[in-house]
């Protein structure tokens, strides 16, 4: 019995109880002289019964599903031969995986190993027991809940406040999911990062200049000592982000100034959405374009003037990333520039300043805090951008600030470390989480400052 079926049955039960509850409210109303004699609308009585039916059952289904896996897995322990248990935790996990696959394959008889066959059969039995038990339990709870609520329906039952309180609680819970997500991010990244720092010292991580995360599989393996000095990654990230900002800030700012101060409303209405398209194009498309068109172009140009340019140069990735960020800078700056009061412009014009002088000496300084906020947001975007650098920047952790060479970034390393093998106790995999923690903290700080600056500035002129 699949979870979907159980869910569907529970939900249809809830619907039936809604209809029955409403029906009972109507019949009470009829006998006591109209709906106006009831405390709440009939629909509220129906909802009350329906919620009493659905909520406990849903809670049980969700709780069951969360803990079913671990419990079934531990009950399986007794079916695993002692010989495997003696080998330690990893072989047991491996063995369980095999049994899992075997049980899912639907062809247990094909397995030559009798012990595995037995274990897989047991696993399937356990699972089907669990499904039946869950089904019976959740249906029973649903019916009992509905019956209790149904019996409570009287002309003076305060159904509306009850229902509304439940709904408001649901609304509050939904709003709190944002907090839960943040907490989830912090904890998931922090725990794995702490495990990483128990193997590699923090000092080595933030001051080391050599990054080669290949840990040795054999003790005598050469060249795979696994050094986790993250300085080259930070420098690479900074280099590419700096190039991106060098492209995005002048272009974005000048576009914003032109659109806000010079362009006719009609031009503005056409150009602004066109610029926004740049922000709507998926980053993987930019990555493809950077790797396939821009990088070779820059390399050929470099060769023409006698420079050796790497085919995965920081310049290519940075430039394309900068173009992607132009609309962020321009729309954020546009907002703050248009928020500058017209009186300031008029005053400046009255003193005989030209339009560009007004913009440079009056509007721009007045809008500066907001523009800085926008630029910081754009910078955090550049630092966290992944696909462009994964596709167009290299993997080589060079310690350089030459934009013509290949560098690697924090996000590229996270992706490379986590796609492929997945062993959660090797320093190599855990390093990705340490990098993720750093990335999260950096962007968070940038965002908090930027949002605060922007908000404070807005209040000034409102």
């Amino acid at each position: 019995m699949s979870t979907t079926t159980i869910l569907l049955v529970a939900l249809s039960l809830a619907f039936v109880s809604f209809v029955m509850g409403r029906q009972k409210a109507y019949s009470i109303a009829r006998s006591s002289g109209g709906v106006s004699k009831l405390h709440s609308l009939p629909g509220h009585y129906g909802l009350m019964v329906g919620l009493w039916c659905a909520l406990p059952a849903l809670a049980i289904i969700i709780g069951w599903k969360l803990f079913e896996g671990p419990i079934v897995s531990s009950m399986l322990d007794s079916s695993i031969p002692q010989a495997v248990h003696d080998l330690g935790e990893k072989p047991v996990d491996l063995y369980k995986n095999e049994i899992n696959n075997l049980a899912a394959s639907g062809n247990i008889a094909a397995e030559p190993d009798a012990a595995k066959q037995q274990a897989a059969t047991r696993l399937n039995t356990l699972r089907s027991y669990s499904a039946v038990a869950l089904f019976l339990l959740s249906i029973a709870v649903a019916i009992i809940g509905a019956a209790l609520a149904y019996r409570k329906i009287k002309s003076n039952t305060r159904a509306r406040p009850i229902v509304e309180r439940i709904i408001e609680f649901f609304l509050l819970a939904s709003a709190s999911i944002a907090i839960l997500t943040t907490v989830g991010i912090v904890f998931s990244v922090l725990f794995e990062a702490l495990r990483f720092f128990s193997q590699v010292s923090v000092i080595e991580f933030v001051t080391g200049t050599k990054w080669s995360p290949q840990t040795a599989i054999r003790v005598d393996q050469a060249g795979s000592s696994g050094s986790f000095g993250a300085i080259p990654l930070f420098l690479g990230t900074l280099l590419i982000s700096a190039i991106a900002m060098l492209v995005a800030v002048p272009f974005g700012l000048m576009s914003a100034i032109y659109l806000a101060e010079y362009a006719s409303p009609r031009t503005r209405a056409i150009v602004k959405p066109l610029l926004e398209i740049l922000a709507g194009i998926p980053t993987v498309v930019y990555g493809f374009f950077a790797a396939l068109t821009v990088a070779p172009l820059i390399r050929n140009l470099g060769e023409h003037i006698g420079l050796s340019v790497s085919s995965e140069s920081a310049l290519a990735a940075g430039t394309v990333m900068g173009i992607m960020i132009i609309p962020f800078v321009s729309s954020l700056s546009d907002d703050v520039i248009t928020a500058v009061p017209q009186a300031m412009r008029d005053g400046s014009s009255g003193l005989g300043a030209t339009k560009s002088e007004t913009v440079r000496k009056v509007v721009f300084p007045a809008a500066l805090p907001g523009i800085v906020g926008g630029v910081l947001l754009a910078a955090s975007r550049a630092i966290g951008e992944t696909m462009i650098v994964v596709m167009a920047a290299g993997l080589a952790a060079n310690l350089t600030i030459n934009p013509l060479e290949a560098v690697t970034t924090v996000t590229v390393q996270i992706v490379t470390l986590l796609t492929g093998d997945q062993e959660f106790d090797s320093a190599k995999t855990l390093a990705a989480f340490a990098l993720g923690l750093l990335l999260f903290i950096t962007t968070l700080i940038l965002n908090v400052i930027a949002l605060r600056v922007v908000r404070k500035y807005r209040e000034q002129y409102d």
Partner: protein
Amino acid sequence: MTNTDSDSSDMNNQDSSQALPGDSPKRDTTSLVKATLARRYAAEKRFKFYGIFAIAASLAFLVVLLTSIFIKGWPAFTHTYVKLNLELDADTLGLSDNPTAKELRAANYSGVIKKTMRDRFPDVKKRKAKKELYQLISSSGEYRLYDMVKENPAIIGTTIETWLPADDELAAILKSGDDLSDPDSIVTRMSDQQIGFAKTLKDAGETQTRFNKVFFTNGDSREPEQAGIKAALIGSALTLLVTFMLSFPIAVAAAIYLEEFAPQNKWTDIVEVNINNLAAVPSIVFGLLGLAVFINFFHLPRSAPVVGGIVLSLMTLPTIIIASRAALKAVPPSIREAARGLGASEQQVVWHHVLPLAMPGILTGTIIGLAQALGETAPLLMIGMVAFIVDIPAGFTDAATVLPVQVFLWADSPERAFVEKTSAAIIVLLGFLILMNAVAVMLRKRFERRW
């Protein structure tokens, strides 16, 4: 022109002021202003030009990006087929008189195709040349032949005229419109002899370029001519469905709470700051969250649309919440007051009046959020949606990939034909994004009310 004009007039003014007798050597303000006016006007022009240049350059880049992808991707929507007169002779196929299903599956279809090719070019004798000849037909040809025979076994023993898909290199040179009589000018992995075969076939009218149905009906493949985006499209649809079903109700509920019910206290402040910050967290961090929590802790299946959908919905929640709050805020207080005046409870005010009026704005925000989710790649790489998936996913827990990840995977493939496949997949992806945004704009235009 105007520059020089104002320059010269400036000169005149200065001259005349100096010529006046008894004038103090100190210049008055007007002449000072006039002296610098030309420079200031030039600066003004320059400044305006910078603005126009910035916009023009950004838009030019947009045009270059789109055209280059369009030009590269367009050929992938068609594929070249080669006409063959196949002699389905039971001996060559290795079939008995009454072939069983198993025999049919194992029959030597490639032998038939090879024989037909040899008959078509009887001059080819050398082994190497023959091998090159065989390479012209895609290896998927034999499967197609098997399907045809399976469907209608009566064709065994007859000669049928059929079109089989060409190999990707052959298709590429035929579609590019290169001059086949000058093999040196063509960039290809094909040999000169193969180009000669191609020319013969083309001149005889035995090649044809048709709409590439395979691209939309197949899953991924190592062979470019058999690779399609159907698996990725279905994966994207399933993932987006999960995202929508989770993020829409939660985001609307959160927005309603924050806008209509939340008391002014610390908790509400924290929630608000949090939502704004989450909107700016790099998407890859959400991938790390998905990996650590949903896959390692809750043991949800890897590569599954359900996990992808959950991660993407967490990512799009802030976008939808912010848009929904703006839409709710735009409903004027008079509506709320009128409803309250008629005795509606606070929740009835919201559910019956405010929410329906705010719905167009909320839906617009939701579609824009979903469009963002559709183009997202990085977090899905973290939860293992990068696997090589040939089968079309049938459910929310099957291993699947999505369109942008497919683009990423194909972009890494060395074959020339994959470049056009990648670009074509991007065109499809952009097509969907344009469609979604167009719907959002239409919703806004059609239902937006100014109060």
